[in-house]
């Protein structure tokens, strides 16, 4: 490995990112990749060149899970900690690694060779257990592979020389419908807007009934029209590829196999709303896709489908740059995503104003999900009736679902809206199912008595995550995993989400460990409803769903764990005395509560 200086690398990064403070996050990611942390010296250099304060940059580093002020190991290993990874043995594998490498999870080994930790779902639910090593994806981990990986690390083998199959990511498309089985001629959607005009296209999009595929279901035509009608000199198109909802991975498959259609959709949107700038905000967990995506963009520039005077149309100038995330689920929320694009902490903005009038750097901005933009491109090429041929009145078209958990054929399934859970479970080979988590931790856990319900905006609305739990699973573990997730991912801006998620986590732990009473359940309801009703953004509003929904639909599971007494202390009195014992240097029987505490 050649020695490079912080000064040189930082100078290169600053040049690459045009000395623009709005690109701070991208610069920090570059420094992190080069030096496994962002040193105080690097912070000072960047602060000086970008006229930002040190505290401001420290605040950004402190916000993102994948940025570090303290050195990480040469090999930074993070095990995906979603419940589905856990169900396939990820925690045991992490334990093996910890033992084999002599490093506790959550720490860096003294020789700074390896760090081990856990991270939120890496989007590989159909091929887990998964992990990241220096942000590169490892899939289908087994005890044998863990053994090999430990060996490679001890040999200091560069990642480029690791067996390539360790990094293989499969598409696993199990069912194709309207979107995935139809072709799209390159440039056809762009040609549609050039030849038929923005008004016509907006009309067609409206007639198609397309609604946002990220989960919220806002009408795409309306979003585009608001942005089109906002007065501004510059408009922006953003593709939200921050697919962070645990259990979903369908955007990853689209980015891997259908990137041309996505860029077609973004360019179509630019043509309709009059945007000149586009961003693809790619979650850090999908770093492995970056190079292919860059190449696809270059191919399109070469074919005059991006750049100046697209398809020879004077004034149709549009290009797309890719920005990386750095480990923050909240950045999937569109206004937090824009903050992150602007190089800041991903704190959701106050709305109004909405991004369609004031988004990236105050310019009117459309933020759409990957699947939405692809659907829009295909509607432009094939017409609204083609799209309307599937789905229901309120939910036109099809939905891509990411299916994982207890089933024999996990992967991506494209279904017409209106499909029932029963049908889906049958198709993916799920038997003896206890419950299905629809729309991830932020969604709901549906018991088997409700499997006749359907995937649709008017019933079970989802961004695409679907995790299946058999009768053998303890659903309280699932609820705990999701509650931990929200504690980890709360941005910390508003009181109810920042504090409430932690309070809920602690109460739930009391329940699961068999120390709770019915008063604790009542308190979880109180805290949960405050978190749900008073939080600043969608994350907070849904963060209590696993617990509130769990207590509503699976109350017997919670009640079975209760102690019969009406009050139990929230803390262990004897454990609380540990610090005093250390100070006094005592650990005899008398220094413990059970021993009389004298």
């Amino acid at each position, binding site marked *: 490995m050649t020695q490079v200086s912080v000064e040189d690398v930082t100078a290169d990064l600053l040049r690459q990112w045009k000395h623009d403070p709005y690109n701070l996050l991208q610069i920090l990611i570059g420094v992190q990749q080069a030096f496994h942390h962002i040193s105080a010296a690097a912070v000072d250099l960047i602060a000086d060149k970008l006229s930002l304060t040190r505290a401001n940059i420290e605040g950004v580093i402190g916000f993102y899970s994948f940025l570090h002020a303290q050195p990480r190991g040469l090999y930074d290993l993070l095990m995906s900690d979603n419940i589905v990874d856990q169900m396939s043995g990820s925690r045991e594998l992490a334990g093996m690694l910890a033992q084999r490498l002599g490093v506790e999870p959550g720490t860096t080994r003294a020789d700074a060779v390896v760090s081990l930790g856990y991270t939120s779902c890496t989007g590989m639910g159909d091929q887990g257990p998964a992990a990241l090593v220096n942000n590169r994806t490892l899939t289908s981990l087994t005890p044998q592979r863990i053994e090999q990986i430990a060996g490679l690390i001890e040999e200091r083998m560069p990642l480029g020389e690791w067996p390539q199959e360790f990094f293989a990511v499969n598409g696993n498309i199990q069912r194709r419908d309207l979107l995935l089985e139809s072709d799209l001629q390159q440039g056809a959607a762009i040609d549609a807007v050039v030849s038929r005009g923005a008004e016509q296209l907006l009309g067609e999009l409206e007639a198609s009934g397309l609604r946002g595929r990220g989960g919220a279901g806002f009408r795409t035509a309306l979003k585009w029209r608001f942005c089109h009608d906002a007065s501004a000199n510059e408009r922006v198109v953003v593709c939200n590829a921050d697919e962070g909802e645990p259990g979903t991975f369908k955007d990853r498959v689209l980015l891997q196999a259908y990137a041309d259609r996505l860029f077609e959709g973004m360019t179509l949107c630019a043509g309709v709303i009059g945007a000149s700038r586009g961003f693809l905000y790619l979650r850090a967990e999908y770093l492995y896709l970056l190079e292919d995506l860059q190449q696809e963009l270059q191919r399109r520039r070469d074919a005059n489908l991006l750049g100046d005077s697209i398809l020879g149309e004077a004034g149709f100038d549009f290009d797309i740059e890719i920005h990386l995330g750095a480990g923050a689920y909240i950045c999937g929320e569109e206004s937090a995503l824009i903050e992150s694009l602007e190089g800041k902490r991903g704190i959701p903005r*106050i709305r109004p104003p909405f991004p369609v009038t004031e988004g990236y750097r105050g310019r009117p901005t459309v933020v759409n999900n990957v699947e939405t933009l692809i659907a829009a491109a295909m509607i432009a090429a094939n017409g609204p009736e083609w799209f309307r041929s599937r789905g229901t009145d309120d939910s036109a078209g099809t939905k891509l679902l990411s299916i994982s958990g207890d089933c024999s054929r996990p992967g991506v399934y494209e279904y017409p809206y209106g499909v029932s859970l029963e049908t889906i479970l049958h198709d993916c080979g799920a038997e003896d199912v206890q419950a299905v988590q629809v729309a991830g931790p932020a969604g709901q856990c549906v018991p088997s008595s409700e499997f006749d319900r359907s995937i649709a905006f008017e019933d079970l609305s989802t961004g695409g995550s679907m995790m299946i739990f058999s009768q053998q699973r303890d659903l309280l573990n699932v609820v705990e995993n999701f509650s931990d997730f929200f504690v980890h991912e709360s941005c910390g801006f508003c009181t109810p989400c920042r504090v409430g998620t932690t309070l809920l986590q602690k109460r739930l732990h009391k329940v699961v460990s068999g120390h709770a009473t019915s008063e604790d359940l009542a308190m979880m309801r109180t805290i949960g409803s405050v978190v749900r009703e008073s939080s600043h953004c969608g994350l907070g509003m849904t963060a209590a769903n696993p617990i509130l929904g769990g207590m509503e639909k699976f109350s017997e599971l919670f009640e079975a764990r209760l102690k019969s007494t009406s009050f139990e202390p929230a803390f262990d009195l004897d454990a609380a005395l540990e610090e005093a014992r250390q100070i006094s240097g005592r650990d005899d029987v008398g220094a413990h509560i059970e021993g009389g505490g004298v």
Partner: protein
Amino acid sequence: MSKHFVIDGREIPFEEGETVMDAALAAGVYIPHLCHNPEFHPHGSCRLCIVTVNGRHAAACITPAADDAVVENNSDALMAQRRTLLQMLFVEGNHGCPACEKSGACQLQAVAYYCGMLAPELTHLYPRREVDASHSDVAIDFNRCILCELCVRASRDVDGKDVFAISGRGIGAHLVVNSESGKLGDSQFDAGDKAAHVCPVGAILPKHRGYDVPIGERLYDLNPISRVGDVAAQEES
């Protein structure tokens, strides 16, 4: 035609562009709040000003007033939610009112009294936080910081110094000071800064004048916050 909305049955006039909070305060209707200070751009983080607007929960300080809207402010349900939010703030940090120099002039304490919070019922988190006494004239006790970001806003928007920022995430979010050592004494902070006079709690405290006003004679010892308003505004006048 002037525009109106209704809070708890009372008609409130407003100008276009005003928030529910602006119009309510102008009309003498108190909505509990901590992170809001009319001198600064609204923030919406403490969530104590949660009201319902046409049945939907919203933070009054960041919600534009709308003609004919029906706003609920003083209902039992909303007051109960505020008590829970206050409880969260109390257990998140280390707040010992009897030993705090700000007691009696602290907005957190005063709002808690106003909302009827009697004792903390939630599990204390007992975080380990520092006291920064490095500055000659002002001390920061991070144990009492409620992350309202008023000092961040004041230093940035009024003092033009950017002395403060927020780092960390979630329950780990915390106030940081812009200096090489991270200490206030090494920063550009000055006791005359606006940022030294906006803290609603006892986190940013002036030195050398503790207990100038005896306990029992302080702002909220004499009047409820709903009548006398924010402590920062009193300090100014």
